[in-house]
């Protein structure tokens, strides 16, 4: 299929982009990497009157470490995240996750801002933002707003972004000493959207966790920071405790049904991921075997 006719404007600055968005409102769409928008337009699922191409706004591209904060410009491409030594050092979870984002051709075009603004509940990066405690930086007609990732995602393809807003950057706290991460997703094929995935960030202390943040994705209409993690922090981990956390996780998730999985299967896989995550981070294969038997 072919997209219906649309007007096209290449924004010359963030201010210019915001002006264009302000004057066209919901009839305009922002084009960054185009990996979700263009297919949707070609399928005529969306027919914007105006495309605001922000691709040339160099100020929105790049990765910088500012003290204890890692700042990633919205136009930074997945391929750049994958190559960045700053990402590996300061947010290794993100580096692990990006390798699972689609395929190289898509990673070469797709951007972190585009992925977060699209807010597909089965995509990797929103869950990483939750696990990493990211702040989403947004500019709109009223100036700049800083939104915690936990507040940002509001539903399937829905965020706190208004039609006149532009997502300009994300800020992540630089990984603390003693921190560890776990990323795994179950997808039918490499590069597919996950059936269930987990992006986890932890701070290890002795034999257990001082902190554990479990960012689940593809388990509902938005990424979920699982509260069950609370049961596993600051205590010695036993198979019984893991089973208790697993049951709590199952209760707290409200997964959807689609062609890949029933809610029951999603709950089951989420529990498998929890068990694999804990046993991997603590290097305790005994825990996982106990949980899956």
């Amino acid at each position: 299929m072919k997209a219906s006719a649309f007007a096209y404007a290449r924004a010359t600055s963030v201010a210019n982009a915001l002006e264009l968005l302000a004057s066209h409102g919901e009839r305009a769409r922002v084009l960054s990497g185009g990996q979700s928008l263009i297919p949707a337009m070609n399928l005529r699922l969306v027919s914007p009157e105006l495309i605001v191409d922000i691709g040339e706004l160099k100020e929105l591209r790049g990765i910088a470490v500012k003290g204890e904060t890692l700042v990633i410009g919205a136009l930074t491409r997945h391929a750049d995240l994958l190559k960045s030594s700053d990402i590996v050092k300061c947010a290794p979870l993100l580096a692990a996750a990006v390798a699972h984002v689609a395929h190289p051709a898509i990673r070469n075009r797709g951007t972190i801002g585009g992925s977060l603004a699209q807010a597909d509940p089965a995509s990797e990066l929103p869950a990483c933002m939750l696990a990493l405690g990211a702040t989403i930086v947004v500019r709109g007609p009223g100036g700049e707003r800083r939104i915690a990732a936990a507040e940002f995602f509001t539903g399937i393809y829905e965020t706190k972004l208004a039609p006149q807003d532009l997502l300009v950057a994300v800020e992540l706290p630089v990984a603390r000493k003693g921190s560890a991460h776990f990323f795994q997703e179950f997808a039918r094929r490499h590069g597919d959207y996950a059936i269930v995935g987990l992006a986890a960030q932890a701070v290890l202390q002795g034999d257990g966790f001082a902190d554990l943040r479990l960012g689940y994705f593809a388990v509902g209409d938005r990424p979920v920071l699982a509260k069950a993690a609370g049961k596993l922090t600051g205590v010695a981990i036993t198979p019984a405790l893991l089973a208790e956390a697993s049951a709590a996780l199952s209760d707290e998730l409200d997964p959807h049904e689609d062609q890949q999985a029933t809610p029951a299967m999603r709950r089951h896989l989420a529990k498998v991921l929890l068990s694999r995550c804990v046993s991997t981070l603590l290097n305790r294969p005994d825990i996982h075997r106990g949980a899956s038997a």
Partner: protein
Amino acid sequence: MSSIRVNPETLSVLDRPNSYIGKTVPRPNLERLLQGRATYVSDMELPRMAHVVFLRSPYAHAKILKIDATAAKQMPGVVAIVTGKELSAVITPWVGVLSHLKGLKSAPQSALAIDRVCWQGEAVAAIVATSRATAEDAAEHVAVEYEELEAVTDMRTALDPGTPVIHASLGDNLAFERIHDAGAVDKAFAEADAVVEADFIFGRHTGVTLEPRSVVADWNAAETRLTIYQGTQAPHMVQNIAALHLGLRESQVRVVCKDVGGSFGIKVHIYADEMATYALSKLLRRPVKFVADRVESFNTDIHARDHRCKGKIGVKRDGTITAFEIDDLTGIGPYSMYPRTSAIEANQVVNLVGGPYTSKNYRARARVVFQNKNVMCQYRAVGHPIACSVTEGLVDLAAMKIGMDPVEIRRRNLIKDDAYPCGSPSGLRFEQLSHHASLSKIVEMMDYQALRAEQVTLRKKGIHRGIGIASFIEVTNPSAAFYGVGGAKISSQDGVAVRLDAQGSVICQTSITEQGQGSESLTAQIVGSVLGVSMDRVRVVLGDTDMTPYGGGTWASRGAGIGGEAALQATKILRKNILDVAAVILQSTPADLDIANNAVVNVSDGAPRIELNELARIVYFRPDTLPPGTRPELMATKHFVPREYPFAFTNGVQAAWVEVDTDTGFVKLLKHWVVEDCGTIINPQLVDEQIRGGVVQGLGAALFEKCIYDERGQLTNANMADYLVPMSGEMPDIDVGHVVSPTRESELGAKGAGEAGTAGAAAAVSNAVNDALQPFGAIITEIPLTPQVILTALGRI
């Protein structure tokens, strides 16, 4: 490579010096394809060409109450908006039946739906405009009023009295039924020590060609001639049918088939939207282009498989299989496809089940029912994956039941390699198969015993791996028995014309077609080898009903075996003609001369006598210098069709080594092996890649591919994100070995190799998964083997 050769005492034309037969040589069309200089239909632009977009039904079954195109017709760039009634003035409907499939019935199908739509995606109006985008804009402004009717979607209830009959004139929803009973089945089951039954379920899937179906139809009113540019496997079939339904003589229709981006049987049928495009060109007196988009491809390219088959096997304690019995059910959509029909797949299932084995007791029933879903028809390895999965699944279940190794039970039951010629209980005739040689070879290739040991060791660590074996037979080189005897005007013979041109190069026109499998290459290899010229001197012309001999095309694994033999025989004549005139020129005798390295040479010492370009110069430009009465003929034509056997059966065996994650239900394909016997191998690389490509398509069926319909007949995954094709990341290494039993029906000895990979891959994987799951007591007889299916079978969810 072990080989069973006919007449080994004589040197055949294939064993000549510098022969290309049996050698991996690059395809002549590689550069064209790799440099992006191929010509696909979508590349074509003709003066005054318009584009057609079809408005398609959103309902699986509905009455069309009203079509209002008033607003759309006023839009700029719109050429015409045509309904089914309007188009019926230039094209007649068709019925997809064949007389040899007794009782097969179907209803008349029109190029565009008239009054009623019978599946979601059926075209109800054609929007013709100056560009595809303009036509899509206009399509959004065509208002169609429908009255939704109850849709028949579940094949299991299609024949129930309470289910609506889709075509009232047919009386019921049963399109075709075949019952077969051979030997003494009840007695054989009674005498068995164990009888095992299982219900096998196969997902509906489709071919997903990289290039979608595409047509440019160009009616030239001045010549009263229609030229159809189309990516098709069978140009002469398209010519015949277009002419028949447009009220033209065949000579008024030319079909040109340039480069084609994959077919897999998808492009060997007559589709309503393609017929509509031909008719629109005639109606509007200008070229019209139709290129299906991906959503249309999923909704209208033929689907295949979608069988539910009950199977039963009897076995004695010593492993002897006493009988097979099946009851197969398949749903084919609302019409039997034209002209090859939608009963062939079920018919093949009945033909093929139990085919590799000696048991003579076999009972089968196959029922083919109508439903309100997209049409189903022949796709790569028609019926074979069903028959192979049922047969091999039952054999493994029988082995499990009596505690016998899967390889051993096959050794005890496969037809012996020295038992040929022989027949199957379904009436198939086998000329020469090599089941035991193939099985021995694969056991050796995979180091079966070592894998078994590894499996045991890993199981103790909670790693569950399985081995699956699947022997198979494959129908290739079909004679007229496939379609011709049933009244279809589909040629089973193919022709090749080969000529030496004035500079000693060779032009070869063949009626087989190329969609990526290497038809051009194998033809050039044969011509070059038999004639004695280098391949770079051979130019192969195909895919044009004006320019090539009349023939069937490339489908049913027939290109090499039938078209290749025609090339061989035509080239032999040309060679003889060249040597005759060379003998005159050289004052020698033909028997003392040969052709090698583009020159006529002495047989005795190989010394060059005259270059072919010099010979051609004399023949074409200075015939006055030849003795009186010498009339050289430097063009030769031959046709070939197998006459002795209706089909050249091939055989082979596949093995899969898989790991099942019993926590998640995910299957990892670790390794796959194939040993096949396609007779003479012309180009080992092409054969191996055909096998691998076929295996990958079979693995897609095993793990991924399924057209998912809801209960209202809506296809819910008609896109590349939701319909999962196999991708390289999930594919295992595929080792291919060969046993060679050439067919005696032809001098070439080649049988087909295009479908063997697809035939047995899913069966091998299913058996491997069940082998891996043995400790859990779970048996799965359903594909695709999704994580959901496996976790459910394991009781994890």
